């Protein structure tokens, strides 16, 4: 019981501040250029009766950004800079031990992407000593927004300069998890968001600070960045967690740490998005020898090389879990020793409904292929100059596009050459 209280207290302290009547207030600032979604969000939170958003923690306008990155970045940004930064400042001042920012945004639209990039840049200018991690939603490959590839490359190239780490979540991957693992028939965005929230929770909920300690980690954001982003050229992180199940299936399944970790490791090296349909025919290269082929974007079958990995384990008998498989030097690039490249956080307390669960946060080649695809599609569209007038209208010129392409080709090349 004391254990549980300590967990709750740690969680509360990190994510919430308190009002006089004891209702926790999320340490959050909400920004949007049109009011419908924020209004919905505020009332949903208040409905729970257990927590809410701060009264003055929102910034809203009426007109939206029209899916236009340039509008979000060059028009809304400067226009509302002062108001938005003021709200953020007030929230920061409420913290006793402030470590950094977690910025949640999409890259396909106009506000999250363009204004999100602008705000991140401002945070870099005004809070240069604080950490910034951007959680970015990678859009479905098809059918959300036509100009999503333009918006994505502009967002990623800008964030690469001003953010410390990019935690990327792919809609396509989460959609498959909902369909294949959770057995949801008519998948809604609400379902997608639940899975996302679960993934975030499994990473950022309290964890013990050391192997045998019983104190919760005070600065998970800082620790995570320290472990996973040793070099500023390599900032793309992704999350894989296991298991994912519907309530019904859960009742009939038992898990072992050995089983979970074996799946997770194979997911890592074969670049699988979830724990079904994992390619068993991918093996790490024999230790001591260079990988059989440098990563080729055309081959489907290749081995996913990592820079650094963090595995977080939660649940019963966690101390007995054996993670040796993740320390194999063959999994990593040659320029970090496995003892530095791999970390594990173990916590006895279970997360959500899973008796045992594991999550892998990885800085590896996971996202190279999706990134390459987005750059390719954006490039083809750019060659025909389609939609460019919509951006130049608001101050984003062809040179800005070219700069973005150059930065991202660099990132793709760097990761490919690991």
């Amino acid at each position, binding site marked *: 019981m004391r254990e549980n209280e300590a967990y709750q207290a740690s969680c509360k302290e990190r994510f919430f501040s308190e009002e006089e009547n004891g209702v926790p207030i999320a340490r959050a600032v909400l920004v949007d250029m049109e009011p419908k979604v924020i209004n919905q969000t505020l009332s949903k939170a208040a409905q729970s009766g257990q927590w809410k958003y701060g009264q003055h923690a929102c910034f809203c306008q009426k*007109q*939206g950004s029209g899916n236009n990155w340039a509008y979000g970045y060059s028009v809304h940004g400067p226009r509302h800079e002062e108001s938005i930064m003021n709200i953020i400042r007030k929230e920061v001042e409420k913290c006793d031990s402030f470590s950094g920012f977690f910025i949640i945004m999409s890259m396909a639209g106009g506000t999250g992407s363009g204004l999100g990039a602008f705000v991140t840049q401002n945070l870099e200018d005004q809070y240069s000593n604080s950490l910034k991690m951007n959680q970015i939603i990678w859009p479905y490959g098809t059918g*959300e927004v*036509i*100009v999503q590839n333009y918006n994505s490359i502009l967002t990623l190239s800008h964030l690469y300069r001003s953010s410390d780490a990019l935690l990327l979540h792919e809609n396509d991957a989460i*959609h498959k998890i909902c369909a294949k693992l959770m057995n949801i028939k008519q998948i809604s965005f609400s379902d*997608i968001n639940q899975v996302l929230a679960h993934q975030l929770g499994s990473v950022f909920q309290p964890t013990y600070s050391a192997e045998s300690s019983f104190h919760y980690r005070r600065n998970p954001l800082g620790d995570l960045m320290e472990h996973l982003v040793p070099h500023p050229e390599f900032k793309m992180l992704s999350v894989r967690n296991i298991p994912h199940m519907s309530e019904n299936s859960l009742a009939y399944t038992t898990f072992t740490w050995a089983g979970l970790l074996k799946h997770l490791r194979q997911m890592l090296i074969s670049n699988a998005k979830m724990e079904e349909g994992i390619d068993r025919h991918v093996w790490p290269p024999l230790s001591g020898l260079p990988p059989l082929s440098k990563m080729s974007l055309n081959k489907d079958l290749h081995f996913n090389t990592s820079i650094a990995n963090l595995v977080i384990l939660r649940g019963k008998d966690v101390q007995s879990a054996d993670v040796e498989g993740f320390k194999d030097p063959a999994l990593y690039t040659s320029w970090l020793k496995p003892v530095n490249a791999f970390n594990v956080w173990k916590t006895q307390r279970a997360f959500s409904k899973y008796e045992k669960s594991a999550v892998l946060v990885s800085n590896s080649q996971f996202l190279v292929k999706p990134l390459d695809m987005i750059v390719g599609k954006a490039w083809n569209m750019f060659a025909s100059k*389609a939609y460019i007038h919509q951006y130049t209208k608001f101050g984003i010129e062809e040179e800005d596009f070219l700069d973005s392409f150059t930065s991202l080709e660099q990132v793709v090349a760097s990761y490919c050459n690991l």
Partner: protein
Amino acid sequence: MTQSVVVQVGQCGNQIGCCFWDLALREHAAVNQKGIYDEAISSFFRNVDTRVVGDGGSISKGKICSLKARVLEDEFPEVYRFVTSIYPSGEDDVITSPYNSILAMKELNEHADCVLPIDNQSLFDIISKIDLMVNSGKLGTTVKPKSLVTSSSGALKKQHKKPFDAMNNIVANLLLNLTSSARFEGSLNMDLNEISMNLVPFPQLHYLVSSLTPLYTLTDVNIPPRRLDQMFSDAFSKDHQLLRADPKHSLYLACALMVRGNVQISDLRRNIERLKPSLQFVSWNQEGWKTSLCSVPPVGHSHSLLALANNTCVKPTFMELKERFMRLYKKKAHLHHYLQVEGMEESCFTEAVSSLSALIQEYDQLDATKNMPVQDLPRLSIAM
């Protein structure tokens, strides 16, 4: 919530506009039972009656004014200008309609952000289809009167006195569906400015073919998923288009699907995957789909779909317009009526037709790329 001002011009415009306001109020009344002037309704209506808020009093109607597209652009450059324009059919009762159309086209070309061309023949065909359905007397099939895309808000009779009433209601429904995502909540909102952003790849090419479905709902309450997929198929059938054109055999530059009702992202994605193979998209926009999900369906339906296609199939419409114009203009028939008006000169006509010719040429160039294989272009190479 963004607010929109509707500018209704001329007899046609005003008659359509009139239907629109009635239907819009009906739609909001269905959602807002107490008649309170709320956020959603403020997108189209000003609250003139100051007693209303919190009182449940009566809802006031919107006010309109008449200006032209060019003036709107000068006065309000940042505001998006959407135009639904009725194109004359072949057998037109107005002899000089080709002159009017060409002159109007020039303005639309230069000053509108988006144009939704509609022809009367298509509207008439839709009505005929509905009348056939309603009067077929098939056993057990009764149509919900309010669900007819041709019904006006007060309609209790299934027969229409004048076909123009029914036709205008179709266009009014188009406008409602166009703006539904801006007025009501949903899991994937789409504002009018997003339509323009995603569907207009080059400034001149801003003509969108619209399709509305369903045209009616049967009183059968059980709507299995098959019917939902049928709705998507219908949106790509010529029977539901508001312009006579053949998008399936032409080239898509972009396509938007605005869905209303209890439809989720997985339904949307499934149907796009299903329909994609039969449609040809331009090489640089192979995945050119823009989508929106609005939770509130239209009155009388459980779900609906408005498809807007930027497709080279509008070219024949413009070519026909140009031909009819040239037939009149070559003989200088009726020209003096126009030239008598101050500010009108022959150069207005020549500029207008050359503007239209340039537009047709742009579509030609795109059509030429139609059956070429799609190739990835060489990328920037980085020195490591």
